[in-house]
């Protein structure tokens, strides 16, 4: 049955979109709990201490809180153009803010919250959904054979092997890139202007040393917490040291902002 809803506001904030959002949330929770339970059973079969599993769980929950608030701010950012339900769905499943904004920009260039039609909205939703699925498709079709043919062979169990260092190197490359992201902003970066949740096409050139300060303070805070965990035997801190270090780094950005430095 087609209800022929043509009012964009009625579609953007439709109850059934929120119901889909709730269903997506439930799906993610059920899937995650299923795999977590399988992993827990496997930990028992391997004779792993319960404490280790608990550590992985608590540290991951505490680690995720701050970035998730950041992701939710993405929902608010996009809500001006797309309402709340669609950004909530998109950022809950296989989404990332920079990607979603790019998708909006490509599918609906020049469209504003007031000029948007139902067709624009549907086009944006399809574009966002289709173009992000490549990683999942590669995982679905190629991950198993890639793991067997490449990963297992790269990581041998020899006494002296490059395997473990290979992934340490990938991590270091990753961290170095994000250091570059923070450091380079002292010399210049471009901000695409966002109005009502979509790019306007205007680019603003800016400089800022705040991200570098945040990076360095978080780094030093982690050093301090690590000292407390290792040398002062404050083991309880171990699961929270990353979150606390991030909070201190982020607080430094707030304090600089209060002093007029952004």
């Amino acid at each position, binding site marked *: 049955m087609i209800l022929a809803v043509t009012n964009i506001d009625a579609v953007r904030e439709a109850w059934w979109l929120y119901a889909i959002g709730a269903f997506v949330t439930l799906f*993610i*929770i059920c899937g995650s709990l299923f795999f977590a339970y399988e992993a827990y059973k496997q930990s028992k079969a*391997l004779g792993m201490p319960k404490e280790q599993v608990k550590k992985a769980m608590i540290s991951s929950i505490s680690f995720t809180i701050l970035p998730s608030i950041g992701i939710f701010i993405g929902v608010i950012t996009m809500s001006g153009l797309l309402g709340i339900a669609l950004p909530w769905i998109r950022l809950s499943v296989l989404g990332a803010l920079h990607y979603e904004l790019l998708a909006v920009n490509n*599918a609906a260039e020049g469209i504003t919250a007031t000029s948007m039609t139902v067709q624009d909205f549907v086009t944006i939703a399809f574009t966002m959904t289709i173009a992000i699925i490549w990683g999942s498709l590669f995982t679905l079709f190629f991950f198993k054979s890639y793991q067997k043919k490449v990963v297992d062979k*790269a990581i041998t169990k020899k006494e002296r092997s490059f395997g*473990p260092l290979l992934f340490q190197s990938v991590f270091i*490359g*990753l961290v170095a890139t994000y250091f570059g992201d923070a450091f380079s902003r002292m010399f210049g970066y471009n901000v695409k202007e966002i109005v009502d949740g979509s790019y306007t096409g205007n680019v603003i050139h800016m400089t800022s040393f705040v991200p570098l300060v945040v990076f360095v303070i978080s780094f030093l805070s*982690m050093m301090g917490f690590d000292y407390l965990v290792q040398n002062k035997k404050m083991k309880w801190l*171990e699961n929270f040291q990353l979150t606390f270090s991030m909070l201190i780094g982020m607080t430094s950005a707030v304090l600089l902002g209060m002093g007029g430095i952004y």
Partner: protein
Amino acid sequence: MNDKYRERMHKYGRIFIVLGLMVIFLAPVSMWAITGVGPNGGRLFTGVLVLSLVFLPGGLIEMMTYSPILGTSATYLAFITGNLINLKVPCVMNATEICKTKINTPENEVVGTISVAFSSITTVVIMSLGVLLLIPLRPILNSEILAPAFNWVISALFGALGYKYFKNNLKMAIVPMIFIIVLSIFIPEFVNGNVSILIPIMAVLTVGISKLMYDKKLI
């Protein structure tokens, strides 16, 4: 025993991906079905084509780079729940470090899965709470005072995480750090505007330098 576990996780993981893809399409397909208005074919084709130029090779590189770090079932979970590089991968890196497990071992399969599972649950719970409490939360989260904190949340995340990796592998970090600093000084907008392109480049560079140092027994 681990092989059997992995086989089972590949089976469940593939089922989860197929179900996940169906769930992802639920929103746009329902919109079409309920409103009776389909997407604009031309704009949809162009939009998907342009985005796929970046995200198709990106998807392959992400699968190849991050799946060994995540482990079997965590890879399937992460490739449906998303936010890989800004959340799931560093989250597993942190859990692996705290639990002192080694990549591609049965123990790390467990740690990686627990980590991605609870990270995914935390994210969707926070998002749902945010939607439920949107009216009281919007002014707080949109406040000018808090904006800088969340603008630079990724710098805070990788600054804190960076210490752990630089502490244990200082020699391996020297060349990539010098390289990225020089690049940042000369082409800053390229560095901060192309992080997702730079990550695999930096990863390959660091692996190459580390291999050289390893062969020369410097590490």
